[in-house]
């Protein structure tokens, strides 16, 4: 397996990554452990809800709720910097005037 070449469009699997075996420090192993602990806890919560025979409702995903909330409530964290003002002017204000001019002048 030493000369394993992955397919052109695939990334190398984690178990065949040489960095996994040769240059790993203790802190990396500890952080991987804490990540795995979090993941296992979430898996356990999901499986408990999934296999509960008395459950009648949908399993709601708080990560999904947070994602939707974050994407829709961007205004409270908005600041008018030069970059955001430029983007707003380019996409919101300029097309209005440009399209008005084009539709009014270019008549069939």
């Amino acid at each position, binding site marked *: 397996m030493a000369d394993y070449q992955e397919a*052109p*469009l*695939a*990334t190398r*699997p*984690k178990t065949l990554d040489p960095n996994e075996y040769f240059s790993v420090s203790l802190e990396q192993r500890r*952080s991987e452990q*804490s*990540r795995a602990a*979090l*993941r296992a806890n*979430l*898996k356990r*919560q*999901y499986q408990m809800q999934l296999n509960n025979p008395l459950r009648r409702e949908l*399993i709601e*995903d*708080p*990560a*999904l*709720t*947070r*994602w939707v*909330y*974050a*994407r829709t*409530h*961007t*205004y*409270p*964290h*908005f*600041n*008018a*910097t030069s*970059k*955001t003002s430029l983007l707003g002017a380019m996409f919101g204000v300029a097309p209005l005037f440009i399209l008005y001019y084009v539709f009014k002048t270019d008549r069939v």
Partner: protein
Amino acid sequence: MAGVGFRRWAQALCRGNGSGISALVSGCRAASGVSKGSLPGPYPTTPEEKAAAAKKYNMTVEDYEPYPNKGEGYGDYPNLPERSQHERDPWYQWDHPDLRRNWGEPIHWDFDMYIRNRVDTSPSPVSWSSMCKQLFGFIGFMLFMFYLGEKFPSYQPVAAKQYPYNDLYLEKGGDPEKEPEEVKHYEI
């Protein structure tokens, strides 16, 4: 029964110290639904806020990294690596196999772009610069050649069509009594 409840409500309204709409709306809310602490909030500044945000999003403190605070509206949402779902292990037992995602895992801001039907960030067989050079090189070359073809056209020699009978003098409505001028289409 309903009358008693209505009277109590009216009494509470008179006693309440709010004014206008706030007097009509109750000061407490139901305990069902998501709590405010589990929803995204403003950009975290202190390390304690960062730790609390990492816990909220089910990430470790080293992994959690908010978007830079440039006023673009992200708040404290984590800045996850820009990797599409194509790159995730197809053989692992995901909770949602079509999305290659586990329940409760933090969702990337552009998750709906990175699903398996859409943008794919997996490695390509040729480097990006090489692909760009090949494509734009070919298009540029073809455009240049078409431009040259417009500028310097090359075709079989042609001349104007030559008609007999003095350029069809009678057919074009010329006077039969008059003598037409001689039209010669040749030189000897």
